[in-house]
């Protein structure tokens, strides 16, 4: 009996997010977090207190209000400041994400083989 309760509860939990998940981050927040402040040392636009970043944020807000797509916005900024302004390089540079995965997997498998009996 107890077993069935667990299974039902587990299924409920796993299905819940499909129904109720609500994203409370605005597009502005996401985009300003994925853009680097070019005059600061490694801070994103979202975090930086510099006035330069503040001006950039205003431009970004306008772009969002004008209905530009995420890709258009990112293209606009990369064209002006180079690709270093994009803090999500893995979205276009798949090597960056594949390389550590392959490396990690090879490491894991070798380690496992070395220590286990078979």
């Amino acid at each position, binding site marked *: 009996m107890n077993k069935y309760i667990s299974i039902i509860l587990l299924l409920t*939990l796993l299905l819940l*997010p499909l129904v109720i998940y609500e*994203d409370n981050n605005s597009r502005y927040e996401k985009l300003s977090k994925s853009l680097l402040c070019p005059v600061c040392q490694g801070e994103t636009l979202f975090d930086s*207190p510099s006035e330069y970043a503040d001006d950039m944020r205003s431009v970004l807000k306008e772009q969002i209000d004008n209905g530009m797509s995420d890709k258009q916005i990112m293209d606009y900024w990369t064209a002006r400041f180079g690709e270093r302004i994009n803090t999500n*390089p893995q979205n276009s540079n798949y090597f960056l994400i594949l390389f550590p995965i392959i490396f*990690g997997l090879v490491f894991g498998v070798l380690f496992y083989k070395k220590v286990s009996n078979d």
Partner: protein
Amino acid sequence: MISSIGIILTWFGFLNLILMCFSNKKNLFQTLVRINLFIHFLLFCLLEVGLFLDDFSLYYIANHSASSTPPMYKFASLWGSLDGSILLWNLVLSIYFYVYVKFYRATTELYDIKIFAMIILFFNGFTIFSSSPFSGCIQLASIGCQDFTLLPFQDLVLSEFGRGPNPLLQNHPLMAIHPPILYFGYIGLVLPFVIATSELFNRYKNENWIKIAEKATYFPWVFLTAGISLGAAWSYEVLGWGGYWAWDPVENVSFIPWLLATAFLHSSKTQIKEKTLINWNYVLACLMFLSVIFGTFITRSGVLISVHAFSNGNIGTYLLIGLLIFTFLFMYIGIKNIEYFKTSRKVENIFGRSGFFVANNIILSASALIVLIGTIYPIFYESFFSRQLTVGRSFYDILVGPLLLILLYLMVFSTKIAKVNMNLKKWIIENQNELNISLIISIFLTIYYRASYKFVLTIFGSVLLIIIIGKNVISKYKKTKLQGSYWTGQISHLGIGIFAIGLVLNVTQSFSNELIISTGDTVNFGEKEFIILSPYEEIKEEKNVINLPIKFNDKEKNASLNIFKNSSQQAISSPAVFRNIQSDTYITIKVIDDDKFKLIFRENYGIFILWLGLAISSSSFLTRVRK
């Protein structure tokens, strides 16, 4: 005067260390170790005296302190920049040398003393040959000093004012606490390195090396955990960076040794009990320290951009040479002991107790590897493609996130399997009630927060972990008083379970808004109402502070903007934080435009829970304190 004394004393220290490297007298070294500690302590005090007396004939003091700097920050200026921080580095190394000889030493040969002395000699050499905090000023700049000499008894010039410390570093007392604690963690990882290399150099006459190395790693681990947590708190509560962790290169290179040390603390247990993983343990014991040197190299050589980085021309090359020497030592001793490593047993039951340790090690070291790749990838990218690239938060979220989630579940299942072998079915039957309770709690929380899968998976694991360990603690408290290394593990895991809840709440639930206000306004943010009072300015000796009092319920707090004199740096914003258990309202001033203020309001979830978890995890050392 101070300059000359300091330089001569540094030379004495240097000679003393050389003597230690070459002397074969077994009754001499204890005295030499004491002398070494004494000299480094004197050097530390001497520079402090210089800082408090505003002796601007010293290059370091003229450039990194000012007469207007408040006493506490004068004290902390010693580690505010590169040259001075090496002095602290050497002092901490010397303290660990003393601690090692006093508490951990188990051999009668002198290899360990020589290796340890060689390491300190290496860092000491930097202050002798390249740049010393005691170097005297021979040419003035407009403010501060431009050129220095490394020789004693020179005619020094005295600048009138000091340049003052970096404004970021004189904003909060944590500057006096966070760096030394972090150093004690970071540098303490020299202990396992010395123990492993010297014991094995000795052809493992003392098989106990792994036990000693494990003990010696534990306290540095606590310091490292506490140091990283304090740094996170500083960045969040004071600097107004809004976040506690930015995957900044300097943060990453403190995280890599932490991951490796955590792996070592686990894998050493299997060697102690079952004589497995001997070769891997040797690698880890050395890799911790090598990763410390490597991390120092990439953050102090100027190859990376970071809010933390400070550098000076030739320290990069110097550290790189050190890294090569120590790596060579590690490899040489490794090769010499191939036969010994072959005695390592295979792990018997990979799906049992040892399996957890193996999985734990694979995950932790893979995470360290990923963090390393993310940190140095931009350097390679730039040198190959001559274009710059930024690896940001989402890279680590995607790659490290899932690994840490697996680790959370490993902790859950391993909790009751310390002594018996694992059997998933049996485990589920035994923990049916705990499972059901955590499922119900998770469902409730998921509905309440309208949450995503990231949240659901983490929260279920953490709640289960907390319930299981909590029950364990309560039922055994009377018998064991929670003493011993088993409880160290349990308490750390409990802390991490709580931390994980705070983290996932923060990552998935936080939101923010930027508002332009004028004084007297009432601001609605989320479901809360804030009243903005009129700002006032405080004029202090070293800075002007614009305070904007904000009222929420009955509490009143200041969001402020610090504008430093004598500094080209931008103003620093200190947040007003209204905290409750669930979330912080975190308000920072971004820009002031006449009587208008641009404020950023953030609702940061889970911060209290997150700090609580870290504090519990760090306090696990209490289980090792003998009563």
